[in-house]
């Protein structure tokens, strides 16, 4: 009986756990609630993925009202896959948070952190599950508001301005999205995605729908920080508490990419969007610029969290690039990179979180010779870093392989050059950290630090291990990604 209700339980479980956190207040209890809820969500997401793999997309009418009238939860393979990614990262982050948050957030705010974290998780899962364009907006806002708060939780005062800027940009993005949805509603009279897909072709040629597409694209690109709408991201990731950075970097932008996929391949499934307004060319060009410029900037950063943030911008470029091919291999590459990047960035930011836990700052100066003092942490960083470069037997290699293959198939050699160029820059910035961490002597008078606590190391290594595991055996993930892509394209042109 529960199986049938999984789509909604997936979201409602963390959602309802959030107020419970506020009621119980004791940090340990709040943590327990958060852990149970996010693990529960993970189990639900896995169950859903299996259901979808077996029986195709699941539709769940909330309130018992059939689709275009009520709100529908609709999980196809992509949605379920993203839900698994998000909830898995959530489940791994929670145990990590316990020690890390104690260090970085005031004690009387800890229960509220868990509350916010759960809301954010629920919001992201809600976005993944929903089949309704407006419902998506609501959950977008839940996750956005809670992430602003989580960023502002950091003790550094710059976190406040960063959160404020993020809030302004995020709200503009959401409002743009709202305008887009309004325009679509105006021309079709519906908000349900599947219904929109069916009704849009009739009016696809109208200027109103073109404007709607433009607003949706710009709004979502603000959220996913595609160049040149990325200015909020580096600082946000730099000054937020480490756990928050790890969680957001691994999930929030991925979900935004997912929304973009939804818009192009579900809502506009029956319309050849990529032909309209040079969308393909524009997206590709922006993605390429993002990949190259962000990687180049990353090379010059000394704060490692900021460096990783810029690297995230570049990786977002990869995902958008894969999507904009609109071919089977390209879309597969985009989706698989969604998963893979969540793993590696999660691992990297968590490793840096361990460094911050011991040293307060993770910059090139503080980590000199740290490989000797915190070997497990730095080793996890190396694994994630190699993955970022795309060394074989890591997940990054699988992504890169698929994306390059897509570019070769499409006969787009400049894109191949861009992917390769961005990887070369990745070598440069990753290796600066590895070299400083492992092959520089520990400076005189450096604080003697112990390895990070196991509650932080184990989650970090879970993700680092996953980077290798899914890099060696990418069959499962690739086949899920490929099936998702086929499904998304199948209903399209």
């Amino acid at each position, binding site marked *: 009986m529960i199986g049938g209700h999984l789509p909604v339980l997936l979201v409602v479980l963390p959602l309802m756990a959030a107020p419970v956190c506020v009621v119980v207040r004791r940090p340990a209890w709040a943590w327990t609630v958060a852990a149970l809820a996010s693990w529960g969500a993970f189990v639900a997401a896995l169950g859903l993925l299996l259901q979808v793999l077996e029986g195709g997309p699941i539709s769940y009418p909330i309130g018992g009202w059939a689709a275009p009238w009520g709100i529908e939860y609709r999980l196809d393979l992509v949605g379920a896959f993203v839900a698994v990614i998000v909830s898995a990262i959530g489940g791994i982050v929670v145990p990590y948070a316990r020690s890390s948050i104690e260090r970085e957030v005031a004690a009387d705010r800890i229960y509220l952190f868990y509350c916010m974290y759960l809301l954010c998780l629920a919001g992201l899962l809600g976005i993944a599950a929903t089949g309704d364009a407006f419902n998506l907006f609501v959950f977008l806002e839940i996750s956005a508001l809670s992430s602003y708060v989580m960023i502002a939780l950091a003790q550094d005062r710059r976190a406040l301005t960063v959160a404020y800027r993020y809030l302004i940009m995020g709200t503009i993005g959401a409002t743009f999205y709202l305008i887009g949805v309004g325009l679509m509603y105006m021309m079709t009279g519906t908000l349900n995605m599947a219904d929109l897909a069916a009704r849009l072709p009739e009016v696809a040629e109208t200027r109103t729908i073109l404007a709607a597409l433009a607003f949706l694209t710009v709004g979502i690109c603000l959220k996913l920080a595609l160049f040149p709408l990325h200015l909020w991201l580096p600082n946000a990731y730099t000054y937020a508490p480490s756990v928050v950075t790890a969680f957001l970097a691994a999930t929030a932008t991925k979900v935004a990419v997912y929304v973009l996929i939804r818009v192009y391949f579900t809502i506009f499934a029956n319309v050849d969007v990529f032909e309209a307004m040079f969308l393909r060319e524009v997206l590709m060009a922006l993605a390429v610029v993002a990949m190259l410029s962000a990687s180049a900037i990353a090379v010059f950063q000394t704060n490692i969290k900021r460096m990783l943030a810029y690297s995230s911008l570049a990786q977002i470029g990869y995902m958008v690039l894969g999507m904009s091919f609109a071919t089977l291999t390209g879309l597969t590459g985009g989706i698989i990179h969604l998963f893979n990047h969540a793993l590696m960035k999660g691992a990297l930011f968590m490793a840096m979180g361990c460094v911050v836990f011991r040293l307060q700052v993770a910059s090139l100066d503080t980590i000199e010779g740290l490989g000797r003092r915190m070997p497990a942490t730095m080793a996890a960083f190396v694994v994630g870093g190699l993955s970022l470069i795309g060394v074989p037997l890591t997940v990054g290699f699988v992504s890169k392989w698929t994306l390059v293959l897509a570019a070769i198939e499409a006969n787009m050699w400049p894109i191949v050059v861009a992917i*390769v160029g961005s990887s070369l820059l990745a*070598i440069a910035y990753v290796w600066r950290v590895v070299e400083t961490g492992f*092959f520089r002597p520990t400076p005189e008078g450096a604080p003697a630090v112990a390895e990070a606590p196991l509650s932080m190391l184990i989650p970090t290594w879970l993700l680092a291990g996953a980077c290798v595991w899914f890099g060696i055996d990418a069959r499962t993930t690739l086949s899920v990604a490929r099936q998702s892509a086929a499904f998304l394209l199948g209903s399209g042109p």
Partner: protein
Amino acid sequence: MNPATAILACIAVPVVGALLVTLTGRWPNVRESVTLLSAATLFALVLFLFRGVAAGARPEALVAEMMPGLSIAFAVEPLGMLFALVASFLWIVTSIYSIGYMRGHHEINQTRFYACFALALGSTMGVAFAGNLLTLFVFYEALTLSTYPLVIHSGTDEARRAGRLYLGMLLGTSIAFQLVAIIWTGWLAGTLTFTPGGILSGKASGATVAILLVLYVFGIAKAAVMPFHRWLPAAMVAPTPVSALLHAVAVVKAGVFAVLKITVYVFGLDAVREAASSEWLQYAAAATIVIASLVALTKDNLKARLAYSTVSQLSYIVLGAMLATTWGVVGGAIHLAAHAFGKITLFYCAGAIAVASHKTEVSQLRGIGRVMPLTTFAFFVGSLSVIGLPPLGGLWGKWFLALGALEADQAIMVAVLMASSLLNVAYLMPIPIRGFFARADGSAEGDKDPDRPPIAEAPIPCLVAISVSTLGCVALFFYAGPMFDLLRGAVVP
């Protein structure tokens, strides 16, 4: 023992060895016994495989499927067999040598040194036995990464700069050119498995083959074809055993081996011969041969001179591959083995001289033959082998290469080979000759220091290793027949 198990064991033994070395790092004697033991075990395993391969067997082993249609798989064939034999045998010798060298030099981080060394050997075995391009690429990268810590072993600024160049150039070219070429090949041919006669025949146009060939030859920077040779002289900052085994044998030979293997099993000799770019690449190789020899003449540092000599000699093999005739390929492969013994002897001697006398420059070596007669004599024999004079193994490689050039109607290449041999004489012979006949330079600073013990022969383990490799040079001359038969099996089905 099952051959498939033996193949896997060949990879596993060094890796396990590395692990044990790390664990026993506290007890140097145990640690070094572990190293020797793994080296011996590995050689025994390779010999076991050799028996089968010599009899015509082609054992295979599948490890894991990575992506659909792409797997990590091994398949032993003659080229790889020869490479594995040379590398695993010389590992034993080098291990003995290292013990003398590292202790004599009071080096730091010895545990890391032995562990990485073992890992590098494991990767070399992986390269040698790779059954498809993907596996080859995986171990090629693993080899780069596992030798990086050895290059920057000393931890000085110079070493770190060299390490950056090393990693940037090897990893960079492999991702930028080789990976793209592999993905392209896979897309064109539908498979990456090495197949006699080539997998690309009939599947790609002439122009495509030409471009791919260029991508491979320059993408495999380990083969050090100019202009991607700079990493090799830079890597000479590493301890001498590393320069000896890895940068005269394992790493660089992995590069030329990959070129040979791709020529034979991916393109097929006919396709390479017909490709528009192969002649152009021959000239590139020829230019490298001559220019590197000339540069070697100008180098006063002994190891730098040897490094440029290696660059030059490697291009012989690339030249053989690009000639794409039976004699050319066989000659290349034989040169691979013969040069390995010759060059490793020279490096051993250079290291022995450095340990015993702390002299590293050619100009300091006047009269060294009087205090270190054995070492200097070995140097003399090694030089003769590299030059290619009977009765030493170096002769055969050049001989067959010249035949191959004639077969391909490239008489000019014969001239290049001859010119290069003369240059070899010019940059190598003065060293032993001056060592024996010139009077020691009285102004050398070391000699005036009364506290310094007088220069004596190198430590015993070093001498043992030098003797073994010198004998190897001679043995190769007489046992060229079996080698030749083995290799013919690869080229002529």
